[in-house]
């Protein structure tokens, strides 16, 4: 709920500083890192989309990668073989496909709760995985390699070049910022407040007259659409798609990002993506058993910082002033 003005200001300053850093980052020169941070920001969009479900609607989905994958495959399947796809056509198509899939899946899964919701979302995601893995339509386990990067041409005018890593970086940064701001506004809208009410006390929301099912379905669809956007950007960056994009590992990883960053915080979702990939990079440069270290880190974090990285500021505040607010 409304944070005190001082902490709000501090947060705005921190956000501004982070944004300036991100905007200047490609100027440092190393293409490898520019591409790495691009990848992280795509994952941040993915994590933000899941946070709408887990953090604000109380829907813990373990199958969110399905919609990420659908967004990615939409580009892979729509891209013509001998010429470049148009960004302005394929991007909306990818988002719409992911939204449609989420709408259909959501119509079934938002009827169930808790552990059943987790299992049913996982089951649906596995179905999607095998559709792409085992059918001619999905082109099998090797996936699809695209011969050309999409072009951003509007008529004869091309504002940026998606074959250029720096341009892709800024395009993804803009997308992440837009998704972040969009979710912030949506969460403050009547719809967003109702979702948070459902997360807090679904039974009471129903008795106050809210058709809870439709709110959850709308949230699930919106989250799927945004995951589709992230998937599309991933396909755009790497130029190929394969079924692993939809695997349950991917669904698990994005949940871990949220846990690391702090569930129910948009800042946390972004921070979680950065920390997750950073840990992955650092540990895998040290040992081939990096997953063991990553797992241990996450366990420690959950034990000592259950609210994730986003709760650090709050912990300081509570230590200094004492904050009785529990939620």
């Amino acid at each position, binding site marked *: *709920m409304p944070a005190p003005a001082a902490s709000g200001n501090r947060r705005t300053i921190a956000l501004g500083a982070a944004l300036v850093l991100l905007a200047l980052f490609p100027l440092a020169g190393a293409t490898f890192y520019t591409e790495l941070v691009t990848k992280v920001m795509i994952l941040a969009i993915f994590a933000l989309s899941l946070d709408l479900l887990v953090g604000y609607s109380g829907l813990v989905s373990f199958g969110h990668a399905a919609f990420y994958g659908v967004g990615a495959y939409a580009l892979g399947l729509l891209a013509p073989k001998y010429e470049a796809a148009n960004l302005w056509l394929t991007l909306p198509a990818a988002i719409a496909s992911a939204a449609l899939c989420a709408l259909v899946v959501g119509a079934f899964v938002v009827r169930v709760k808790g552990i059943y919701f987790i299992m049913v979302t996982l089951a649906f995601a596995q179905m999607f995985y095998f559709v792409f893995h085992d059918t001619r339509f999905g082109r099998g386990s090797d996936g699809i390699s695209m011969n050309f990067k999409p072009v951003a041409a509007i008529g004869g005018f091309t504002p940026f070049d998606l074959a250029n890593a720096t341009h892709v970086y800024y395009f993804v940064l803009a997308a992440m910022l837009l998704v972040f701001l969009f979710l912030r*506004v*949506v969460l*403050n*809208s*009547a*719809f*967003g*407040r*109702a979702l*948070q*009410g459902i997360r*807090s*006390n679904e*039974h*009471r*929301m*129903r*008795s*106050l*007259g*809210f*058709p*809870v099912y439709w*709110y959850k379905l*709308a949230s699930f669809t919106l989250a799927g659409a945004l995951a589709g956007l992230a998937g599309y950007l991933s396909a755009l960056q790497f130029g190929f798609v394969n079924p692993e994009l939809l695997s349950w590992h991917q669904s698990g990883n994005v949940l871990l990002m949220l846990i690391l960053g702090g569930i129910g915080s948009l800042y946390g979702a972004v921070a979680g993506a950065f920390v997750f990939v950073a840990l992955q990079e650092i540990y895998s440069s040290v040992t081939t058993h990096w997953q063991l270290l990553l797992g241990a880190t996450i366990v420690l974090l959950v034990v000592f910082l259950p609210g994730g990285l986003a709760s650090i500021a709050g912990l300081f505040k509570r230590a200094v002033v004492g904050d*009785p*607010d*529990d*939620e």
Partner: protein
Amino acid sequence: MSDAILATRGLSRRFGGLMAVGDVALELHTGRLHAVLGPNGAGKTTLINLVSGDLAATAGSIRYKGADITRYSPDRRSRIGIGRSYQKTNIFPGFTAFENCRLAAQSRAPRVLHLLAAAAAYRPVREAAERALDAAGLAARGDRVASTLSHGEQRQLEIAMVLATAPEVLLLDEPLAGMGAEEAQRMVALLKTLAREHAILLVEHDMDAVFAVADVITVMVNGQVLESGAPAQIRASPAVRRAYLGEDELHAAADAGVTGRGDPT
């Protein structure tokens, strides 16, 4: 009696072999407060759950403004004007008291397509929430996070949330439970005010309060209606005394009667 805003007929709910509510006929009228009394386990809360839609009836029907609403979902019943409060405080603990009411009022103006408009900026809903807080005596507590309110204040908030949905029928499940004397007094006054413009179904343990505010009283025992009528009639009913006051009092009354006759032959 045909102008009842809400009427149940043969309303029943079975849990396995237990008939929690059996064959209950009730009529609620605007401007009247209908209280339901009964010992624990009499089926009073189940009755409210049936009318509010939290529980599905196994038999019988509920009519509201001429429509059969027996199969309506709880949210639909709320939207057509049947509001309820809960015996166990059922609020949004992490939200402010104001936001609890604002959210409740928002259900009347969903504006779900206004994805980009701040919910808190919408005047009609804000004002409805403020009126509800004010009516429940919480005007000064709007900024407090609900979980930090006192128990009595949470009970007031419980009522305020229902009022914020602008209901025509109020189903109130023990609104006085756990309230201090002063808070209870204020709540009784509020109930009297509300009874003027609403049809109220009140389940309450506090006998003094019930007899102070009720226009009609129904006494339930073991899920059945024992007696229904004006407070004076209920007060005088021997059947009610027997069931509600319990065996001990009955013996005491009988003993008193025997002694009164003064003839221990």
